[in-house]
């Protein structure tokens, strides 16, 4: 019986001119474009400079700032209003003011002032921009001092601070995003499509015809699950290939681990979709419920911003988000080569979700109204 039901699902899928193409195109689009756009890195900060001093030292400072690689000199002016206008219009992000007497005070009194103003509508960008700029200015002072003190003998007590970046030494953003985007894709395809499935048959009336046959609820739900399970594996494999070819990214751990976890995760998220589908009366309704949950899931999963940086209540909430565990698994296996034994908590959580949602899907399916 199950065999025929699954055969029917695949026939329905194939007859649809749009779905199969989408199952291939969607991962391609997401994995090719999103990693290019999803980048929190702060660089190319447009800097406006007001130099009232016009001295050798102020010139050197400007030279140092503009050659640092973080800043693009968007303009030099003497007029504060002009500079502010430029920030207002988003032509520049930050403003460095060097007051007159800068060189004289620095040489005679060993102390001079500068002022930095940054557009902080995007708080992170504003803060990072000012801290980069401050660091460059401090560096500039240190150079000045070491030039002045080069006659000094003896060793200055010092500690060398060495930052090192494990797993992603060049800090490439795609390395971070691509594995997590695979989870998002699985969720969209293996979650959304089942959510539209039962409700779609309800709306068309074809579900009635199945309901009058002796098919058991369990068998029916299984027949709905298995196709998405298979589709999920196809999508995942496609993702692996794209990651390898486009981003030369292959997992440090084993692909098998990922497939095992994915098989549990897909069952869970498809089960969730089926639950929604059982409760929904129209396609539109099911879709919006799904949309609602998936947006919440994605934002709380740590895909974009680390869970540990969220408010405490949001961190508790994220414990109930299946995506969170799967994203941890993919990032850990891809980047750190984690093995099964490192991921037992995630396995437990994902299995729990899969059991819970599918049991619910079976129980909430009603053959008669």
């Amino acid at each position, binding site marked *: 019986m199950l065999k025929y039901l699954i055969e029917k699902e695949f026939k329905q899928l194939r007859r649809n001119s749009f779905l199969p193409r989408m199952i291939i195109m969607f991962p391609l689009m997401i994995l090719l474009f999103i990693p290019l756009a999803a980048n929190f890195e702060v660089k190319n900060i447009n800097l406006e400079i007001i130099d009232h001093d016009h001295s050798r030292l102020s010139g050197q400072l400007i030279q140092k700032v503009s050659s640092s690689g973080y800043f693009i000199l968007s303009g030099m002016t003497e007029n504060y209003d002009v500079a502010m206008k430029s920030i*207002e219009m988003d032509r520049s992000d930050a403003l460095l003011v060097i007051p007159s007497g800068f060189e004289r005070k620095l040489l005679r009194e060993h102390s001079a002032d*500068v002022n930095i103003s940054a557009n902080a509508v995007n708080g992170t960008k504003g803060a990072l921009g000012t801290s980069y700029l401050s660091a460059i200015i401090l560096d500039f*002072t240190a150079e000045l001092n070491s030039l*002045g003190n080069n006659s000094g003998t003896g060793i200055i007590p010092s500690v060398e*601070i060495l930052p090192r970046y494990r797993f992603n030494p060049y800090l490439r953003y795609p390395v971070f995003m691509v594995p997590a985007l695979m989870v998002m894709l699985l969720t969209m395809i293996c979650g959304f499509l089942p959510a539209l499935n039962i409700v779609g048959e309800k709306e068309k009336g074809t579900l009635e015809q199945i309901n009058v046959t002796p098919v058991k609820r369990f068998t029916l739900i299984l027949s709905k699950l298995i196709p998405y399970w298979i589709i999920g594996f196809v999508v995942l494999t496609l993702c692996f290939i794209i990651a390898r070819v486009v981003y030369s990214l292959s997992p440090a751990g084993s692909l098998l681990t990922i497939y095992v976890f994915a098989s549990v995760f897909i069952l869970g998220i498809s089960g969730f979709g089926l639950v929604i589908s059982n409760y929904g009366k*129209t396609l*539109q309704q099911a879709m919006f419920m799904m949309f609602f949950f998936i*947006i919440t899931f994605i934002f709380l999963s740590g895909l974009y911003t680390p869970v540990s*940086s969220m*408010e405490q209540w949001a961190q508790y909430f994220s414990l109930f988000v299946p995506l969170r565990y799967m994203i941890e698994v993919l990032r850990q296996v891809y980047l750190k080569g984690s093995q099964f034994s490192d991921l037992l908590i995630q396995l437990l959580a994902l299995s729990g979700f899969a059991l819970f949602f599918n049991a619910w899907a079976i129980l909430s399916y009603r053959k008669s109204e």
Partner: protein
Amino acid sequence: MKQFIAFIKKEFHHIFRDTWTMIILLILPVLMLILFGYALSTEVKNVRVAIYDPSKDSLSEEIVRRLESSEYFTLSKILDSPFQIEEEFRRGDTGLIVLFSDNFYSSILRGEAQIQLMADGSDPNSAVTATNYASAIIARVLSDRLPAGQNSTATSSRINITTNLIYNPEMKSSYNFVPGVMGMVIMLICAMMTSISIAREKESGTMEILLVSPMKPLLIILSKAVPYFVLSCINLLTILLFAVFLLEVPIAGSMAALLTVSLIYIFVSLSIGLLISSVASSQVMALLLSGMALMMPAMYLSGMMFPIENMPLALQWFAQIIPAKWYIVAAKNIMIKGLGFSSILRELAVLSVMALVLITVSLKRFKLRLE
């Protein structure tokens, strides 16, 4: 006109009858606002730190204490040997490992002491921020505790830096996100909902019935758009109320300018919805089209989450044709920067042209289909 109003009433009934969709339509904006305002923060804090400190002298312990008491870090583990580093990263969510060199304090005077900050670079943003914070804290401890160099006479110069974060001195991430959520939600309700509700009538065959009624086809389509227009206006107001009173995001500039640009943007979104429904023959197709061709780019390329200027040039160009991008810039200028009409002339012009082009194209396409 009477007929038109009757049709609009019918559409309202359609929406109100479906309680769940109604609730979601009204709650979704608020939910997104709360998620963006509280859950999503590009700030990095509570990074879990593990320490390897073989010498455990007073200075290294002072550094550990100061790291621990900062809000950015949580001390998670003391390692006994450097061989545990790999395992620590692989198993847990340790973000940073601080490794002191042997005989830390005594080697300082010879200038040989080292602190390695080994960060989990898989998340580049967190890794860089964590190492920056840690370096700053360590530098402060060192400058407090170490003599300023035996040989340094008082000749070292200083540049005093005063910084000032304009528009958002407290660096609230909601200042950045709220205009983005507005752009998103309006697009969602207007474009997605309209396109699907028209596709639904086509799919179920009821469109045929509507079309044989004495109403002009154009008015039938418009009557379907009106309820979503009203819903969007309600959503716009809820978002603004929640933003101002819950998230304390100001509307510093001209309210009239904000409403004008919002209305134009709602028109743009509605016409996109009409365009999609003229192409899509089924609800699923309308959903996927509006999901893929509309929501995805609007989410990623509008500058709502990720800065556009970081993207490759081709994507930056592509971002220019996304209406949400222009709307978000305008909303930020008015709400956060407190500017007036004159600051958003360009955005108003671009959105108006988009509205005109889109509505012309979509109505043309509709006529063709209705032959």
